[in-house]
């Protein structure tokens, strides 16, 4: 899940050089649209298609209205403008769907378990998420490094005016690419819907983790995003599972169940601080795609 979001953000941020805090909001919008469509039509497929298409349009609208002039501006402006967008999206969603959380169920077809290895059963739905994540990774990597579209995006990131002066309508291209980044976030959102609750502000919780993934992996490189997601995912789940028991054996159960969850949630940040301390440019520094 983390990787889906990280891939979308790497596309927008690493390659288009735009810090987009509102990426979490697009994740949330995707989740909401999918949930609404699913509850209304009952079919998961329709919900997915509708959510991706609608978020693509929302993403492009946001780009044209607010973000288009920010590409050349420094990161502080981008952070603040997208911070404004978060406030807007969180409230807008609250107005439309109310503040209470929505719940959807995992689609029947994927609700079973699959037999990974004899004796090891793994929820089918989560397996699908991982598969989709890997597929997206492959697709992005190929597009960015081997297609002309990828070259143009990378060229645009380093010198937009020059790409335009060579006859390419870079503005339109960026709008479309931003839209796909948004759709990727929506994909992450709609898949997270059934597992986590769908409520205003859900985007921000995961957003910070996604930034941690990107910074650890190395800003701007798809490989980095993949590696970062795996590392953070593991550290987080392992931390939550094993930290409390190990801690309680060390400092006694009562203190453990107090400090345990605290330390677990802080683990990934400590990890990030450590990585940045030794390798400020991350594990897989971007070779710029």
């Amino acid at each position, binding site marked *: 899940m983390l990787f889906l979001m990280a891939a979308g953000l790497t596309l927008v941020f690493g390659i288009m050089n735009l810090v987009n805090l509102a990426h979490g909001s697009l994740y949330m919008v995707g989740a909401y649209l999918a949930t609404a469509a699913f509850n209304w039509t009952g079919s998961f497929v329709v919900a997915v298609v509708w959510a991706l298409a609608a978020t693509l349009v929302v993403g492009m609208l946001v780009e044209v209205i607010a973000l288009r002039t920010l590409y050349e501006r420094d990161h502080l402006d981008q952070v603040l403008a997208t911070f404004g967008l978060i406030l807007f999206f969180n409230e807008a969603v609250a107005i439309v769907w109310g503040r209470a959380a929505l719940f959807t169920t995992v689609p029947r077809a994927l609700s079973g378990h699959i037999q990974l290895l004899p004796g090891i059963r793994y929820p089918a739905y989560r397996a699908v998420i991982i598969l989709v994540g890997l597929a997206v990774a492959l697709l992005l990597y190929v597009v960015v490094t081997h297609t*002309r579209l990828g070259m143009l995006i990378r060229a645009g990131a380093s010198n937009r005016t020059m790409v335009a002066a060579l006859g*390419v309508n870079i503005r339109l291209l960026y709008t479309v690419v931003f839209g796909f980044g948004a759709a990727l976030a929506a994909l992450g959102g709609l898949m997270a819907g059934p597992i986590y609750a769908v409520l205003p502000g859900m985007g921000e919780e995961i957003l910070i983790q996604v930034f941690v993934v990107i910074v650890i992996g190395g800003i701007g490189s798809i490989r980095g995003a993949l590696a970062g997601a795996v590392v953070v995912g593991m550290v987080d789940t392992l931390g939550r599972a094993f930290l409390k028991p190990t801690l309680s054996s060390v400092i006694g159960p009562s203190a453990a169940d107090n400090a345990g969850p605290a330390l677990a949630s802080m683990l990934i940040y400590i990890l990030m601080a450590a990585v940045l301390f030794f390798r400020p440019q991350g594990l897989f520094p971007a070779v710029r795609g």
Partner: protein
Amino acid sequence: MTLRLEGIEAAYGLSQVLFGISLEVPSGRLVTLLGRNGMGKTTTVRAMMGIVPIQAGRVHFDGRALHGLPAYRVARAGLGLVPEGRQVFPNLTVRENLVATAANRRRAAGPWTVERVFAMFPHLAARARSLCGTLSGGEQQMLSIGRALMTNPALLILDEATEGLAPIVRAEIWSCLERLKQSGLSILLIDKHVEAVTRLADHHYVLEKGRVVWDGTSVELRARPDVQHRYLGV
């Protein structure tokens, strides 16, 4: 295929830089823009290309009006830009730089291909796969010219094509421009090396503080050392 500028005025922020530039690049001719630093040569190119907004005046190419169009539309009309400072894409390989923005929008016969660019600039062939951030100044300049040619322009604009290059490399660029002129491509060239430019170009325009103060053929320019000294500091 003539380029005509009439009374172009442009400004950076509050300070006006161009005060009515008029010039013409007839089809198949090599014309130069000369003048000291900061006299508006680069601004004229940026205004013509639509990168800097035009306050007043008109730009026509091959009969079509280009003033007011965004840069990508001006480029699509057939103007190929080799910018000041080369501005190659450092995060792309040499081959990617050539291919990324290549196009043949005007269905030119015998369009430019990567192989033809490598034939003209053998140095680049050897570095095809390397990221061009590691290229030398001369190689980047050749790449920048190759990249512009790959869009099959009708008019090639070179802004300070030999600035900061060693004499040997400069000579190679001159000979390349010579060959391009032979092939019928019209060229607008900005450069400081008056002596070399008078051997190559058909017509010259001299700029001083955003105005054309003199224009004439190479023969006329060579006959006017006073113009050369006063405006070009030679």
